C-alpha cells in the first residue's frame, strides 16, 4: 500500500483500477452495440437508444438504488453472480465494475455511435470490393476513421467513472481496500471533519484528472492537424 505523507493512497489506486477496467469492458460491449445502433434498421433501434441514454437522465441515487436491489443478495443479478462465481456481487470490486459499466454506458456508446455514423462508408465498401477481409477492413479502414470518436469514448468513460459517487455510495459499502474509491474516501474525510486529508485527496484527483485531459486533448489536436494535411 502506497503512503504519501501519511495519507492513504489506496482509494486512488482502486479508482484507477475501476475506471480502467470499466472502460475496457465498455469498449468490448459498447463497440458492437454502437455499431448496431449506427447501422440497424430494426424497430428496436429507438427503444435501445433510449435505454442506452437512461443513465444520463436518472439521478445516480435512483440508479444506485435499483442496482442495489438488483445486485443485492436477494436480487436477480446478485443471485446469478453468486451462483456463477460463489461470491456476492454487491459490495465487491466486481460489483462496482458492473455498476460503473451501466453508469458510464452512454458516455462510451454515444461517441462511438456518432463516429460510426459519420464514417465514409465508401472507403469501407471499396476495401471489401478490393478483397480485404472484414478484420483487415476494420483495423485499416474503420479504426483510423473513428479514432477520434474512440478516444472521446475512452476519455469520457474513464473520466465519468473516475468522478462516480452517488451510485457507488449506494452499492459499494465503502469497504477500505475493496470498494472505497477516492470520491467516497473524500466524502468520508469530510464527514469525519478531516478537512486537511479531504483537501489532499481532492487535490490529487484534480491534478490527475487535469493531466489525463491535457494529454488526451493534446493527442486529439495532433490527430486533427494530421488529418488536415
Amino acid at each position, binding site marked *: 500500500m502506497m503512503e504519501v505523507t501519511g495519507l492513504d493512497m489506496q482509494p486512488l489506486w482502486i479508482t484507477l*483500477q475501476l475506471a480502467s*477496467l470499466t472502460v*475496457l*469492458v465498455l469498449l*468490448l460491449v459498447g463497440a458492437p452495440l454502437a455499431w448496431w445502433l449506427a447501422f440497424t434498421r430494426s424497430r428496436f433501434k429507438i427503444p435501445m437508444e433510449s435505454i442506452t441514454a437512461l443513465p444520463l437522465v436518472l439521478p445516480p441515487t435512483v440508479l444506485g*438504488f435499483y442496482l*442495489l*436491489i438488483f*445486485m*443485492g*443478495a*436477494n*436480487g436477480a443479478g*446478485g443471485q446469478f453472480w453468486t451462483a456463477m462465481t460463489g461470491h*456476492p456481487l*454487491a*459490495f*465487491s*470490486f*466486481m460489483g462496482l465494475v458492473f455498476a460503473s459499466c451501466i453508469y458510464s454506458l452512454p458516455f462510451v456508446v454515444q461517441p462511438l455511435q456518432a463516429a460510426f455514423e459519420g464514417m465514409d462508408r465508401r472507403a469501407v465498401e471499396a476495401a471489401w470490393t478490393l478483397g480485404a*477481409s*472484414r*478484420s483487415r477492413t*476494420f483495423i485499416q479502414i474503420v479504426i483510423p476513421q473513428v479514432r477520434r470518436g474512440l478516444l472521446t469514448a475512452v476519455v469520457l468513460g474513464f473520466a465519468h467513472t473516475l468522478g462516480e459517487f452517488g451510485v457507488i*455510495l*449506494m452499492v459499494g*459499502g*465503502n*469497504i*477500505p*481496500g*475493496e470498494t*472505497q474509491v477516492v470520491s467516497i474516501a473524500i466524502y*468520508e474525510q*469530510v*464527514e*469525519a*471533519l*478531516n478537512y486537511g486529508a479531504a483537501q489532499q485527496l481532492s487535490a490529487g484527483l484534480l491534478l490527475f484528472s487535469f493531466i489525463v485531459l491535457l494529454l488526451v486533448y493534446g493527442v486529439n489536436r495532433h490527430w486533427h492537424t494530421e488529418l488536415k494535411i
Partner: protein
Amino acid sequence: VARRQSEFILVIPMGGKSMRIVLCGWLILCCWSGAAFASQVNVAVASNFLVPLQSIAKEFEANTGHELRISAGSTGKLYAQIVNGAPFDVFLAANSKEPQRLEVSGAAIAGSRFTYGLGQLVLWAPQLAESYSSIVEVLTSEKVYRLAVANPTTAPYGAAAIETLKKLGVYDDIKNKIIRGENVSQTYQYVASGAAQIGFVAKSQIISQSMSHENASHKTYWTIDGALYSPIQQQAVLLKRAENNAAARQFLEFLQSREGRAAITSFGYGLVDSGLVNTGLVSTGLVNTGLAGNGLVDHEKKP
C-alpha cells in the same frame, strides 16, 4: 461463410486479451480477500462516531490482534446496504430505530443490541464573542441570521434540535433562520465555514475537532440540557453473518468494557446508567473482555 469466420477471428483475439486482463484483476482480488484474517471484523459505523471508533479500533487491535475494517456512512444508507447483504459484522448506528428494525427482521442477532453512547446536543457559536445569559438569548440574537440544524426527518441530532427549539418556545420565532444540513456533519460544516453563525451539532464533533486543532473558536458552545430532547441513543448490534465470529463479539464486549466506555465518554458521548434504559449494558462483562461470546447471549431481552 468466410466472412463470418474472419469476423470471429477479429473478435476472439480481442476477447482473449481483455479476458486475460479481467482474469488477472480477478486473481488479484481473490488474493486480497484471501489475505484477510479470519479474525477480521467489518464494522459499519454512522459517520458521527467514525473518529472515536478509529481511536477505539487502535486500542482494540493492539489488545487483541484482531483487525477492524471500518466503513462509514449514514445510518439509513448503511441500513439499506445491510438489508441487501453487505458484508458487515457489526453495525454502530446513530440511533436506535435501524438497529431495532434489523433485530426484529432477523438481520441482527437478537439480544445483541445495546446503547454504546448517548449523543449530546450542543449549540455551537464560534463567532459569537459576547456573553449571553441563556440559550434563548443566543438563538434570538440579532447577530444570528442563520441557524444550522441537521435534517430532522433523517438525522437524530436534527430531530433533537427541533424538539429543543419547541420546548424552549422559540421555534416559531426563529424557524425562518433555520438552514438544514443533510446530516450533522454538514451542519457542522455550515457553521465552520461561517455560512451559519450558530448551529446545533454533536458535542463529539467539537471535541474531536479541538483534539486535532488547537483552535479557540471551537470552545464557544453550550451543552443543551438533556431534559429538552429525547435521548439520542446510538445503538450497536451484531449482524447475522457474524453469528459465529468471536472477534466481532469480542469487539462489542470491548465497547462496553471500562476502557471502551472511557474512550466513548472522552469523545463527548454520554453513557447509559444501569436501570435507566434497558440496553444490556447492565452487569455485562464490563471489565473482562474475555467474556466474549457469552455476555451478549445472556442478556437477550424479553419481548
